[in-house]
C-alpha cells in the first residue's frame, strides 16, 4: 500500500468560485492544502443532495457525505480526468450509496430499521401530499435492485444525462440505456397502481391535461 501523501487540512475558506474544477482537482492531487476545503465548499451540497435522492426520504446521509469526501481524499490521486471532478465525486457517492442501501436492506431484514421512523428532510413548506407521493415513489424504488434504483434516481430524479449516469455508475452507455429501459417500465407499472402517485402526477402536470385535450 502506498504511503499517504501530506495530509490536507481544511483551513480558511478560499475564494474558489473563480477556479474551475480541473484546477481544483489538480490542486487536490498535488495535495495543495487549500484544495480540499474549496472542493468541500463547492460540492458538499450537491453530494448531500444526490445522496438524499439516492437513499430516499427519511434517511440521514451525513455519515455518507463524510465517507464520500474521505474516500475522495484517499483516492484523489486516482482521478484520471481532472475536469471530471464532479463525475468522480458523484461516482464515489453512488458507490457509498449502493453500499449503504445494501447494508440497509440486510439490516431491514434482520433488525428492521424502517425508513419512515427516521428524520424526514422535507423541503420547507413541502406539500404533505407531495411528501406522501415521494415516500411512495421511494417505496417502489425500495423494491428494485440497487443498480437499477441508482440509475433511475440519477436520470429521472437528479436529471442527469445518460452519459453522466454512465460515468457516475462506472458502466457503459449501452448498459445504462438497457438498465433504464427495464427499470423505467417496472417503476411505471408499479406507479400506475398507486392512486396517490397518479393523483399527484395529474395535479402537478397541467401540461399533461393540455396534451390530452
Amino acid at each position, binding site marked *: 500500500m502506498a504511503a*499517504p501523501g501530506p*495530509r*490536507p*487540512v*481544511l483551513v480558511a475558506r478560499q475564494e474558489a468560485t473563480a477556479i474551475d474544477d480541473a484546477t481544483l482537482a489538480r490542486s487536490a492531487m498535488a495535495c495543495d492544502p487549500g484544495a480540499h476545503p474549496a472542493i*468541500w465548499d463547492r460540492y*458538499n*451540497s450537491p*453530494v*448531500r443532495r444526490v445522496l*438524499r*435522492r439516492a437513499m430516499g*426520504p*427519511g434517511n440521514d446521509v*451525513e455519515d455518507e*457525505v*463524510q465517507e464520500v469526501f*474521505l474516500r475522495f481524499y*484517499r483516492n484523489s490521486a486516482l482521478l484520471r480526468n481532472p475536469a471530471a471532478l464532479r463525475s468522480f465525486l458523484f461516482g464515489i457517492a453512488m458507490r457509498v450509496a449502493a453500499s449503504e442501501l445494501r447494508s440497509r436492506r440486510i439490516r*431491514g*431484514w*434482520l*433488525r*428492521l430499521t*424502517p425508513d*419512515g421512523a427516521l428524520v424526514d*428532510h*422535507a*423541503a420547507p413548506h*413541502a*406539500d404533505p401530499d*407531495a411528501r406522501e*407521493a415521494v*415516500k411512495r*415513489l421511494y*417505496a417502489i424504488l425500495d*423494491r428494485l435492485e440497487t443498480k437499477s434504483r441508482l440509475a433511475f434516481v440519477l436520470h*429521472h*430524479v*437528479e*436529471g442527469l444525462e445518460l452519459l453522466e449516469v454512465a460515468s457516475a455508475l462506472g458502466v457503459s452507455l449501452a448498459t445504462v440505456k438497457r438498465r433504464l*429501459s427495464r427499470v*423505467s*417500465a417496472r417503476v*411505471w407499472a408499479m*406507479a400506475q397502481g*398507486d*392512486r*396517490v402517485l397518479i393523483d*399527484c*402526477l*395529474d*395535479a*402537478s*402536470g*397541467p*401540461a*399533461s391535461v393540455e*396534451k*390530452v385535450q
Partner: protein
Amino acid sequence: MTRWPTSSPEDRDDALDALGRMARMHLTGDVSPQEEAEARRRLRAHLAREPLAERARRKAKLWIGAAAMAAVVAAIFVGRPLLPRPALTFDVDVPVVSQRDYLLVPSTAPSGHVTFSDGSKLTLSPGARGRIVALHADGAAIGLEDGRVNLEVAHRAGARWSVAAGPFAIVMTGAVFDMRWSGADELFEVDLRSGSLTIRGPLAASGIELAAGQKLVADLRAGQLRIERVAPEAPDDTSAMTAPTMPGESASWMQRVAAGDFRGVLADADQRGLDNTLIQSTLADLVALADAARYAGRVDVAHRALLAQRDRFARSSAARTAAFLLGRLADTSESQPAAAIAWYDRYLAETPGGEFASEALGRKLVAVQRVSGAASARPVAQEYLRRFPQGPYATKARELTLSP
C-alpha cells in the same frame, strides 16, 4: 388511470420525469449553516485522525487476536460458552415446493408447513410464496412475496423474528398471527391471534403496535389503513400473550390514535354519545377524535370534532389548524370547493405565517380555478408566487400567470 398520455416509452419517461421532479423538489441538499459547519468540523476531525488509522487497525488486529485466543481457551476449559449458538434450521412439509430457501405452495395443493428447530411453525396457504431470508440463533427473517400465511412463533427470551411483505415489515418476539399480502391489489392484512407485534410500512411509518385480537388492514391503493378488533383467542399458558389492560387503565385517545386504534376511539366516542363527547371532551381528546375520524373515513365526525375545537377552544392553535383541516375535508372528502376556499381563507387570515400557509394558499389556488376558472385563479397565483416562490404549487401558479 392517469390523465398522462403513456402510450409510448417517451410519454412514460415524461411521466417518470415529472415524478422525479417532485422528488427533486422534496429532497434537496440544503442544511442549515450550523449543520454545514458541524459537517465541515467532523470532516476536519476525520482527516486529522487519518494517519492514525493504520496504527489503529494494527491495534485492533491485536485485540481481535487476543479475544480469539481467549475464546479458544474458554472453549477448552469452560465448555464452549463463548462460541456462537447455532442458527435455527427448518424442515419443509409436502406440498411446499422448496428451492433452497424459496418456498411455494401450488394453488391447487393443500396448505404446506415449515417447521423450525425452535418449534415455530409457518403455514403457507395454497398459492402462497415466499423465502426464508435469514436464519439465526434467535429467530428468522421471512419474506412473503404473495399470498396468505400463518406464523406461530415460539416465545423464547431474546427471540427475534421478522416478516417482510411488499413495503411492510413485521417484527415480533413471540406471536401467532395470520397475514396476507397481495402485490397485485397492494393489500396487506395482519390478524393477530396472540402475542404482540410491531408493523412498519408506508401508512405506518413510525410503527404500529398490534395487540392480540386486533386486525390491521392496509389498502395502499386507497391510501387507507384501519385496525379492527376481532375476538382474541383464549389465553393459553405461553408468556407470549400481551398483558390485558386492567380495568381503569386505559390509554389516552392520543396514544390510541398513535397506535392506529382509530375505530376503537370512535367506538368509545359513540358509546359516550357523540354530542356529549363534543361538549365535554378536553381539547386533546377532540384533536384525537378528529384525527381518528379523518383516518377512518368518518367525515361527519371529523367535521363536527373540528368545529367543536373552533367553538370551544377558539384561541388555541389547534382551533386555527382546524380551519385548514376543515378546508381539506370540504375539498377532498365533501366535494365542496367553495366551502373549502372559505376555510382556507379563514386559516390564512388567522395564521398568515402558519405551518400550512403554503399548502392552504396552493389548495385555494386549485379550488378557485376549479370553481371559477383560470382568470379568477390568476390573482391567487400571483399572491402565491409572491409569498412562496419556491413552494410546491409554484409551477402551477407560474403556468396560470403565463396562460392567456
